[in-house]
């Protein structure tokens, strides 16, 4: 386990090599370094997992101290990594899914100008993300947090020659900064109140210092929640994620579906001790999650751009995770994070294969008929879609989402309201997912196929499709075999979600209802969007536009924040504080000109200067 540090070091090394050698590196080498570094990290992570399970370290966690980062005035920070079951799940997801996405990128980016740059950024991202989840203290976590934010910015704006991409990148950066700032303030408050930033220590001291429900606990939990909401694109900071689709599709798969956006979920799970002290914050988390999942679900239903459907779907699925966190179903949230990483990465990669094949076409109304032309892409995409729609029994998404839906009702913090929203969300999910599948792959072909995916793109699709279907068997409900591998493992570091009294009895009924909702959604989609379907129901145009624009949040923020700010900036264009400095510069310039006039090059005036100096000294001698 002493090799833990290698996991983030591999991709960092890859980044350094790619950056330093850049143009001198032949394409084939750049690709192998980019993919190989993440592959090495994935192997190391598997080794760690093996070692961890075999040796079960004391207190179910292993800490590796590398060196002291800073030690000043009582603030002692270390570069130290903390490995427990939660971290292990995260690093396996990041390196495993990350590896397959890198592999896929070899094909997807093959003809791009910025090939080396792409892999450099991607490697840096993986390194930062690993630092985020391995961090032993909050500032180190924050370093990774900002690192992934930076890489997200760089990769959204990867094709920087189009100003729209640059705008999308800036938007993502600025909107998440709002959350990041809240989080930074949260760290300050924590340090100020508890005198430490080491995560485990913070939770222990908080539990000792603050009674449950105290204001301080609520304040810090809410500030951290602010950070999580920004990173995970939840209400009210969700607006950046749909625009973030401007980046290359593998980026969307890795950063904006499988890993970075789940950092908020990870953060809350990691600091669950703090949130348990603030029940109100947990309720707020659940409400945000439930509201987000519905709002994003409706928006996904009407999008025309295949990537935007997936983006809204990601927001919606992250909403499920927040709901699970809010009702105290910690391991259910992480389980959904785990399966979501597989099937959403798969869907993005499948969408990427389609976009690649159609020469950059993203509009679903110009697709269609691809089932015959791209059979492998179709079947794998279908597997991912079934998993996202939670097709009962055979998909991973069913088991994880079902767990959340059940616990939204059954957990002591849950209730019928949350359950109802979650089921409605499941229906919506199935509906929009199969709308997307049908529009893309069935019906008449509208755009010719240019490049069918090559081997390096097909292999990741197959592997991820397999995982999307089977990863769910790690955790099954009472009624279906009762596997507890995943939660049994996670409960070494996360508390178990109990059941409210008298609710176990309903389990089968509620599961049936949830499964039914998913099937209804799929059936509805077939009726509405299948090319052979007779009835074609369309929404009122105004509502459709409203949903396409994501419930008008963008224009609201534009009016509320952006425009007033621009007005203010324009008003103070010649910053009045600058006047002082302008005055200083003027003073120096005038002084220079006055003195420069004395340097006239004439010997006699220089001699005068000498004489005047001597006279001055003589005068001083006489007078003093």
């Amino acid at each position, binding site marked *: 386990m002493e090799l833990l540090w290698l996991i983030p070091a591999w991709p960092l090394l890859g980044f350094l090599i790619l950056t330093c050698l850049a143009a001198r590196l032949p394409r084939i080498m750049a690709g192998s370094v980019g993919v190989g570094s993440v592959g090495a990290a994935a192997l190391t992570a598997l080794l760690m997992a093996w070692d961890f399970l075999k040796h079960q370290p004391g207190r179910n966690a292993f800490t590796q101290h590398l060196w002291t980062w800073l030690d000043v005035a009582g603030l002692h920070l270390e570069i130290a990594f903390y490995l427990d079951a939660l971290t292990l799940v995260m690093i396996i997801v990041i390196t495993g899914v990350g590896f397959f996405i890198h592999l896929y990128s070899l094909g997807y980016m093959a003809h791009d100008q910025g090939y080396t740059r792409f892999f450099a950024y991607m490697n840096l991202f993986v390194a930062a993300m690993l630092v985020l989840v391995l961090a032993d203290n909050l500032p180190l976590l924050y370093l990774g947090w900002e690192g992934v934010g930076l890489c997200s910015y760089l990769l959204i704006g990867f094709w920087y020659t189009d100003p729209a991409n640059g705008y999308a990148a800036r938007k993502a950066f600025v909107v998440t900064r709002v959350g990041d700032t809240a989080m930074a303030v949260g760290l300050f408050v924590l340090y100020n109140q508890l005198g430490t930033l080491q995560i485990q220590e913070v939770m222990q001291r908080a539990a000792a210092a603050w009674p449950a429900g105290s204001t301080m606990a609520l304040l810090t939990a809410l500030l951290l929640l602010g950070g999580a909401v920004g990173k995970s694109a939840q209400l009210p900071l969700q607006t950046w994620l749909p625009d973030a689709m401007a980046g290359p599709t593998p980026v969307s798969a890795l950063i904006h579906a499988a890993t970075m956006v789940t950092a908020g979920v990870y953060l809350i799970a990691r600091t669950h001790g703090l949130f348990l002290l603030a029940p109100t914050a947990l309720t707020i988390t659940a409400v945000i999650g439930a509201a987000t999942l519905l709002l994003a679900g409706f928006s996904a239903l009407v999008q025309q751009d295949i990537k935007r459907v997936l983006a809204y779907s990601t927001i919606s699925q992250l909403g499920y995770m927040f709901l699970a966190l809010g009702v105290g179903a910690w391991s259910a949230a992480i389980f959904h994070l785990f399966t979501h990483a597989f099937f959403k990465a798969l869907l993005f990669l499948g969408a990427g294969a389609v976009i690649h094949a159609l020469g950059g076409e993203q509009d679903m109304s110009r697709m269609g008929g691809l089932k015959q032309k791209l059979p492998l892409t179709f079947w794998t995409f279908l597997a991912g879609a079934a998993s996202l729609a939670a097709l009962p029994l055979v998909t991973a998404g069913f088991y994880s989402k079902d767990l959340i839906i059940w616990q939204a009702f059954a957990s002591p913090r849950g209730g019928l309201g949350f359950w109802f929203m979650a089921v409605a969300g499941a229906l919506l999910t199935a509906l929009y997912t199969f709308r997307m599948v049908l529009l893309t792959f069935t019906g008449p072909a509208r755009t010719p196929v240019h490049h069918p995916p090559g081997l390096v793109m097909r292999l990741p699709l197959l592997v991820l499709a397999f995982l999307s279907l089977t990863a769910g068997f790690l955790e099954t409900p009472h009624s279906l075999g009762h596997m507890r591998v995943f939660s049994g493992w996670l409960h070494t570091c996360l508390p178990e979600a109990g059941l409210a009294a008298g609710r176990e009895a309903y389990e089968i009924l509620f599961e049936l209802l949830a499964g039914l909702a998913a099937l209804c959604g799929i059936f509805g989609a077939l009726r509405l969007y299948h090319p052979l379907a007779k009835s074609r129901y369309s929404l009122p145009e105004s509502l459709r536009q409203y949903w396409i624009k994501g419930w008008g949040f963008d224009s609201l923020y534009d009016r509320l924040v952006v425009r007033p700010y621009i007005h203010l900036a324009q008003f103070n264009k010649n910053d009045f504080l600058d006047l002082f400095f302008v005055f200083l510069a003027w003073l*120096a310039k005038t002084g220079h000109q006055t*003195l*420069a006039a004395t340097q006239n*090059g004439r010997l006699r005036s*220089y*001699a005068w200067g000498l004489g005047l*100096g001597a006279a001055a*000294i003589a005068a*001083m001698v006489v007078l*003093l």
Partner: protein
Amino acid sequence: MHRPDFIALAPLLILALSAAAVMLAIALRRNHLSAMGLSLTGLGAALTALPLMARYTPRTVTPLLIMDHFALFYTGLILAATAVVIVLSYDYFSQKDDLPEEAYLLLLLAALGAVILVCARHVAALFLGLEILSVSLYALIAYTRDRNISIEAGIKYLVLAAVSAAFLLFGAALIYAHTGALDFQQLGALLKAEPSGRPALILLAGLGFLVVAVGFKLALTPFHMWTPDIYQGAPAPVTAFVATVSKGAMAALLVRLFTPTDLPHWPALYLFFTAMAAASMAAGNLLALLQTNVKRLLAYSSIAHMGYLLAALLFSGQKAAVVMTFYLTVYVVSILGCFGIIAILSSKERDADTCQDLQGLFFRRPLLTGVFTTMLLSLAGIPLTAGFIGKFYVVSAGVENAHWFLVIILVVFSGVGLFYYLRVIIAMFSPSLDEGLVPSPALPALSAPVVLTLTFLSTLVLWLGVWPSWFLATLEKMLG
């Protein structure tokens, strides 16, 4: 004179002998390389003599000279700086002048004068050293005879230096009239014995006129006006010599003269020194602000630096010698580097001393630009360079002794000064103005000794900037 006296005087004797040897060699057969080789050998021999004679110090040799640790250190500095100037001169003169050999003769003589200055313990020795130095400089400044600007600079320097020498003699006469002594040590004792408050007018006036001469040589405001014209007119290596050896020797003399005296004891002098320091820092930095000629800019910058140096003298009392010597060494190294680069870039017709000449240098000569940038940053006092450490010691001495007025002036005008150093650096890193229109002048290939010298200088600047403790400890042991 006994044998130890001769040994103690070895550096002076070797210098004088090698000057004579160079003169004879030229008379026999003109050869640029051998003239330079002879001079360098002489300097090298004098430098090697220093550690050997260290055993015989401190020793008073005749009533005129004293060889102590202080003299030893400064002699070493002068000899090393002269050697650097000679290395730079070889490349510089070999492409410009048909009769370059006498420059070495003059440089050796000037160095001899400077060494006498730092060893002086008597006003007569002071005058002797000063005149040997000055007379050599008149010729050196005007050495590029085909340039009007050099001739003009030579004449200006001649007239003004003569006036200042007159002040020196007059001041010395007044002092002698009052005390009957010209020996520094005797003078010091007599001055201490003077009743505080209002010492005799005639003595004070004498000291004041002495200060005029020192102030002129150091180019302290208001005696600074000659500097830019002479710096600009003189050939670049000679400018380097004026800026380093000539000023350094005079600064050393200042330290020797005034560290033992209790300056605040003499309000008139103290006030005048304070005013000179403040005015030099202000005028030097302000004058350099918009200057586009780099040689003139460095002239103004040196005025400011001499202001900082004088401030160090006022700040640090007993420790003045160490602080000032450190500062001066750093200044000498940085200035030598700057003028070295200008000398390298200069063409047969004129020196490369305008900002246009440096425009885009980075893209043609990245390493030279790196060295120049290091030197300029050191002069500006940016951390990781020796200049920062030097300035830091000056400021910390000022803060320690609560000389707030001068400290504030120093900090404010150092800030102003940053502007013009950065302007030069920016010019070097900006793309050339005439890119593609006019082929940029072919730069001469660098000779190995020049490369070696520049490497040595920049290593020194960075080394003293990162790890100054060894050098400081040595200085404290020698001078403390």
